[in-house]
């Protein structure tokens, strides 16, 4: 290790800090949603290709593994939406005090979990049929 001062890296940060946790979760969910965009366009192209092309895509989209992907996307969407709104509030210069930011972190976690459960419940009970 050089003796000069180094910029902080993973070994320096306290990983359990809510600031770091909410921030990195926002980025992870963002990356997941970027892959979700790929899936969305694949789905749109399959629809546009006609009934037979859609039937082929449905075979892929209804693989058991895909349930995990949809669950991840629901989690990612819910979190990134609510955390993004928190960022927009911050951008107006509000809510940046430590106490406010700690409180809003809990609000983001709570609201996004409620949103995940709501969407998940609707997907499960709605029984999204593909025929």
């Amino acid at each position, binding site marked *: 290790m050089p003796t000069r001062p180094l910029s902080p890296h993973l070994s320096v940060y306290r990983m359990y800090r809510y600031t770091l946790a909410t921030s990195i979760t926002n980025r992870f969910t963002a*990356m997941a949603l970027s892959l979700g965009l*790929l899936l969305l366009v694949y789905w*749109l192209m399959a629809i546009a*290709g006609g009934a037979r092309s859609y039937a082929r895509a449905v075979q892929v989209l209804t693989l058991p593994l895909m349930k995990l992907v949809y669950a991840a996307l629901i989690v990612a969407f819910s979190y990134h939406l609510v955390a993004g709104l928190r960022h927009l509030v911050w951008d107006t210069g509000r809510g940046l005090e430590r106490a406010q930011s700690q409180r809003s972190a809990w609000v983001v976690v709570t609201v996004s979990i409620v949103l995940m459960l709501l969407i998940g419940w*609707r997907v499960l009970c709605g029984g999204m049929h593909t025929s």
Partner: protein
Amino acid sequence: MSLRSPLGRVLGAGAAGDGVRHWWQQRLTSVALVPLTVWFVVSLLALPSLGHATLVAWMSQSSTALLLILLVLAASWHSQLGVRVVIEDYVHGSGTRTLCLVLIGFAHVLLAAAGMFAILRVAFGGAP
């Protein structure tokens, strides 16, 4: 005393060369994506089924097609801006980084174009 030239100050570009444009576009697209994504999720969950005929009927409505196009465009641009920052943060070595940025840019343009083409094809009754 500032070492910035008068022109540089007027343009407000700073060291990155494009000022706050990236930041501002990220905010604009995020504001647009709040209603668009909520609309998309709610509409999708409200559909009676995800069968081909149902989806084509849904996408043939002008309002659906229009909102879907806005969604795909805003999401592609927002995603491009975001992935770009992640690459700039974590991919080191200017050659690899530039290559990644170019590929990511092309990939997002392709996604936006393909998505829009698919939506319009269905909306104009071109889906077989």
